[in-house]
């Protein structure tokens, strides 16, 4: 079955990104397809390449990147939510005249339409938030 996943909270502050990750992994293990993982609200912070957790903790950002690489996942960060919170890819940083970008590998920034599309194309949409 085709699932869409929405993540509404950032890493570490709330468990929602962890839960979404565990759910996504379990769904993939059961042979389901993940149409898209959409990061909204503070969830956009799951894509920050500047994240440095303590060494004995899980690396939430890298973990998403690795899962995306392994399963060819579409990890989409909402552009409006991202720009509010200082999350930019290289192209957008250049366009906005900013001197840095911070989008981690495996994520892409796109519009809210991608969330609606995930709702339309997926057979189930599961929301993780606070």
């Amino acid at each position, binding site marked *: 079955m085709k699932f869409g996943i929405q993540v509404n909270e950032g890493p570490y502050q709330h468990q929602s990104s962890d839960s979404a990750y565990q759910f996504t992994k379990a769904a993939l293990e059961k042979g389901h397809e993940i149409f898209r993982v959409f990061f909204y609200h503070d969830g956009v912070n799951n894509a920050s390449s500047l994240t440095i957790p303590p060494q004995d903790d899980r690396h939430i950002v890298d973990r998403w990147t690795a899962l995306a690489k392994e399963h060819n996942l579409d990890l989409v960060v909402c552009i*409006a939510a991202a720009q509010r919170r200082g999350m930019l890819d290289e192209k957008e940083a250049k366009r906005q005249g900013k001197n840095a970008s911070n989008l981690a590998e495996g994520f892409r920034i796109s519009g*809210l*339409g991608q*969330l609606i599309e995930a*709702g*339309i*194309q997926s057979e189930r949409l599961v*929301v993780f*938030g606070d």
Partner: protein
Amino acid sequence: MEDEEVIKKFLYLNRKAPYGSIYALESLEVVLIGAAFDQNVSLAFIDDGVYQLKKDQSTDGIGMKNFSSTYRALGDYDVNKIYVDKDSMDERGLTIDDLMNLTYEDEDDDYAEKPSISILTSEKISALMEEQDVILSF
């Protein structure tokens, strides 16, 4: 993309008050973008979500954008099924007169102006939830 004709029932479920957190505003942004997709859209306001529709919001003193006028524009986006939970209203001592007057023009009825908000019992809202294909919670 290839199944552009698929029409699903989308419910936006709002349970949080405005301003104290960004959920109400960013939920509204999804609704506006989603309106372009020609899906069957409903909005439900329950629990503290009903406070989003309170009239007379004035944010000058807190320095935040007053986005309440955007709800009035929903009718122009063909978003006109707005359901408010009666129990949540009663619990908070609110009546329909405390809410913004949201309307739309009914193109099937000579563009007559009609109210978008219905105050429904929990039983009716439950039945509505059950009909949905996609429920976006904020």
